[in-house]
């Protein structure tokens, strides 16, 4: 469970170009929820995600994850609970390392990286099985550098890497913005599957209203750093696409 309590984030505090990215936001996200966050540019979506991931520290307020106060923890310590997929497909994986090496790191997301060799036959098999679920034929390329793959493939693998260890929160910051429609569909379907099959608590930021309508069981609209709308599963299922379009009218 993620609990944001009275979170505010100011940039350039006290200067003429001060920006209030988040304005006293309180938000509870329950385990297994798939929350879709929409809002105009500058509404605070990415800041919200960055505050949860620990990329940005809140100016005011408190964050709890699974009952732990994580407010002062840096990003690398929050990886115990949080996995991320970035807008830029290049950010989620190390291009010069093999697919296998990338998956090895992901499998140790919540653990120490010891000075022992962890890649063995059993691990290779496990990675191949995981990757074959994608149906992209990448399971035979695990010794190739990640950089050889397309953006869509890398994004799908980044998503898959998020479930190699026992993190249970998945943050998706416009993961399909740089992808073609076909790859975008693969990535979102996979995210949906991970949420439904494994109960990953998922937060998806998107500018695509169709995706916001189709995926998730909770819809939040941000506006100028505040929560404008918070629609639960039942109400969301009754929303039509034109309804959501109207919010941006």
């Amino acid at each position, binding site marked *: 469970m993620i609990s944001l309590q009275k979170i505010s984030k100011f940039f350039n505090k006290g200067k003429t170009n001060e920006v209030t990215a988040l304005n006293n936001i309180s938000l509870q996200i329950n385990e297994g929820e798939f929350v879709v966050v929409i809002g105009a540019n500058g509404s605070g979506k990415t800041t919200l995600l960055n505050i949860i991931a620990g990329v940005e520290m809140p100016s005011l307020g408190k964050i709890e994850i699974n009952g732990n106060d994580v407010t002062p923890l840096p990003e690398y310590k929050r990886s115990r609970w949080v996995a991320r997929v970035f807008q830029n497909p290049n950010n989620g994986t190390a291009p010069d390392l093999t697919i296998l090496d990338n998956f090895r790191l992901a499998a140790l997301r919540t653990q120490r*990286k010891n000075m022992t060799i962890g890649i063995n036959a059993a691990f290779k098999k496990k990675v191949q099985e995981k990757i074959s679920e994608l149906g992209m034929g990448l399971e035979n390329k695990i010794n190739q550098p990640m950089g050889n793959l397309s953006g869509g493939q890398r994004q799908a693998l980044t998503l898959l890497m998020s479930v190699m260890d026992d993190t249970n929160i998945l943050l998706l910051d416009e993961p399909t913005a740089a992808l073609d429609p076909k790859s975008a569909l693969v990535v979102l379907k996979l995210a949906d599957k991970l949420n439904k099959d494994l109960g990953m608590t998922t937060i998806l930021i998107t500018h695509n209203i169709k995706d916001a309508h189709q995926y998730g069981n909770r819809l939040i609209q941000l506006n100028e750093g505040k929560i404008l709308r918070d629609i639960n599963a039942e109400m969301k299922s009754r929303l039509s696409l034109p309804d959501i379009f109207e919010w941006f009218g």
Partner: protein
Amino acid sequence: MSQFYLTALQLSICLGPMALGIFITMKIFNIPDITTDGSYTLGAVVTAVLLSNHWPVLAVLPLCMIAGSVAGICTALIHTKLRIDALLAGILVMTGLYSVNLIILGRSNVPLINIHSIFNTLSIFNNDIYNQLFVALLIIIVLIFLLRYLLLTDFGIGMRATGNNPIMTKSMGINNDFIKIIGLAIANALTALSGFLVAQYQSFADINMGIGIVITGLGSVLIADALRIWMNVSNIGLQILFVLAGSLIFQLVLAFSLAMGIDPNFLKLVTALFVLFIVALPRVSSQLKRAS
């Protein structure tokens, strides 16, 4: 084989650890660390002082590597904690080390004659030169295996990923600052090991022996990189061997220049021009390809 080339081989092995240190900082971590000039001399200086005080050579070896790693940690702390550019951090530590080295050595040059050095611990061959070569080879082979092992471990994957994509490693629970500190410590310990070897090989330590040595390591790594791209190799063990091959090629070029009768005073110029040649070669050739 002429004496020139045998010397080049021996020297290239002695400088091999330093080249591997530069490989770690430049290729693994993507940090331009030039603490090298200082930590190389530091290794030599610690070796000279302890050996002339009759310390056993096997105790001197770890001590000078620890000294080198401390120098690396200083650079890493300045870079990561004070957020100062790595290049500047390296220059600062290197400059400071000059005085430290001078204080440790007590004067600008200490000869190491009639001293039990690492190179006369074994006498398998009748020829001293071969014995020296054998000892150096033994050390470098152990080093190749250790470094290869380290880079293949889970920690090593973390090291390689940190240099490759620091955004990703943070989300994988890696403390990038900590891993860089460890990396620079290892790199400069290796550099100090080269100082340890060269001081005993040439039988003296000199306060100025490190000036420009970073270029030798850089050249070796650049040659290795050219080989890696040319042969399309991603295997870690081979990359390590390429760095050592780079070190050998570098020393052979210098030996060849000397054999051609080039004034030794021009050696640094030859070094700089050779490195320029290696750096410029891929760029020039790609431009020529585009033009044609």
